[in-house]
Every structure is written in C-alpha cells, then in structure tokens.
C-alpha cells in the first residue's frame, strides 16, 4: 500500500543533510583574503635587501682601499651615499626598477660624555624622502671612520649608520 507516511522521515532527513552540508561549507569556505603575515614577509625582504646594500657599500672594491661608505661619512657626502644606495636597492634583473626610499642617520659616541650617543642626519634632499607612515624597516651597519667629521676631538671611531627604508 503506498501512502505518504514516509514523508516525515524524508523531510527530516533532507533537513538534517542540508544542515550538515551547510555547516561544513561554512566552516571550510570562509577564507580571509588578506593575511596579516604578508606584512612580515615584505618586511623581511626589505630588511635583507637593505642590509645587503650596506654590506656592498661597506666593502672596499680593491685591497688597501677605503670602503665607499667610510669615504661618504668621512667627507660628509650624503648625496653620494643616496645615489649609490638607491641605485643598489632599486636594481632588478628584469630592468624594471623598484621604488624604494630611505632616510639615514649616523650615530656615534660622544667623546666628551662617553655614555651619550649623538646623531647626525645623513639624508639627502634629492634622493631621500619624507616618511609618511609606510611600512618601514631599519637596517644598520657599523662603519669605521678615520676622521669623524662631526666631532673634532677624536681621531678614529666606529660609528653606526642607520637607514630606514620603505617601498613607495
């Protein structure tokens, strides 16, 4: 005898199935497109690149020569540093240059008061830029200078050049 006494079971079964499938779909498919870790990857890439550029600038190209960075600091030429640093940072193998900007500062120990650190800005008005809340990283390099141009008291010192880099 065919009647509709099984409708209850069918409807309840369909309802349960729809509920489970919907739950599973919701749990699996809610994906967030922007993951916060992307920021750290970009920071890591920028930091490694900045440090590489400073190493290249701080290595003398031939034996018994001064490194270019030592020369720039001793002669107080932030524009030379800016040109070379941005050239290195923005070079790519495909030829389309990157858009990385920077600001730089030199930190050195105050000989008059050895527990104090003094700063000297090393930015250049044409190549370095104002910083407006981009994601930036700090890279730094210890540089030996034979004639600190900012402090006439001491002959030679190790100074720290700190550069803040960001991508425009």
């Amino acid at each position, binding site marked *: 005898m065919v009647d509709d006494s099984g409708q*209850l*079971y069918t*409807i*309840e*079964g369909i*309802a*349960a*199935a729809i*509920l*489970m499938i919907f*739950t*599973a779909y919701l*749990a699996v498919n809610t994906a967030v497109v922007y993951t916060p*870790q992307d920021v*750290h*990857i970009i*920071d*890591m890439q920028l*930091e*490694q690149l900045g*440090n590489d550029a400073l*190493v290249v600038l701080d290595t003398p190209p031939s034996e018994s020569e001064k490194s270019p960075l030592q020369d720039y600091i001793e002669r107080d030429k932030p524009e030379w540093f800016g040109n070379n640093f941005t050239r290195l940072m923005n070079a790519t193998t495909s030829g389309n240059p990157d858009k990385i900007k920077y600001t730089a500062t030199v*930190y*050195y*120990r105050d000989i008059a008061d*050895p*527990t104090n*650190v003094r700063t000297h800005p090393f930015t250049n008005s044409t190549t370095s830029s104002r910083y407006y809340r981009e994601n930036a990283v700090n*890279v*730094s*390099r*210890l540089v*030996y200078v034979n004639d600190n141009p900012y402090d006439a008291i*001491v002959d*030679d*010192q*190790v*100074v*720290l050049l*700190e550069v803040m880099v960001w991508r425009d």
Partner: protein
Amino acid sequence: MAGLNDDAQWIVMLGFIISILILFLALIVNQSALVGQTTAESVLEFPKTSIQDTRNELMTLKDSGLLKSSLIDDIEFLSMVRRGAVVSVNTSATYIHYNDGVTTYNETIGGG
C-alpha cells in the same frame, strides 16, 4: 501533542550533533593557529645581519692592525644603545659574545 509523530526526530538530531562537532573542530583549529610563529617573523627576529656585521667589523679592524680598545668600546656601546644587544669582546678580539635577549652567540677565533 502526544499524538505528534516524532519517529524521525533522530535524523535531525544526528544532523545537529554532527554540525556541532564540525563547528567544535573548527574552533580548535582556530585556537591552534594562534600558537607558533611564521617563518618571516622568525627570520626578522634572528639577528643574522647584526652578528655578521659585528664579526666583520672586528675582523677587518684586526686584520688591518687598527684595532684598539676605544674602537671596541664604541662597538659595544652602539650595539647596546641602538641595537639593544650586549656585545662583549676581549682586548685582542679573539672572543666575541653577542646577546640581544633572544639569541646568544659566542665565538672564539683562533686556536684551532
């Protein structure tokens, strides 16, 4: 009410139970993701370039004969004040100690 047929309610009940289990599992996965560190963060945290820089500076100064105690003091001071790392070097630069609070590095140069 007593006459209502509740024979098939067990099906829906199972459906509810399974949904609850799925959501519970998703909750566990959500909580577990908060533990641990991404690779990029670990790379940023490890002071590879600072250690390489300190070593390179000391070895270059030593090889060119320019090393003196005031330069070692400069390096130790700047590392502490700007990089937040304790650097300790002996006078002939044969032993380097670096500690930035998370990573410690010790090196003895020479002597095989």
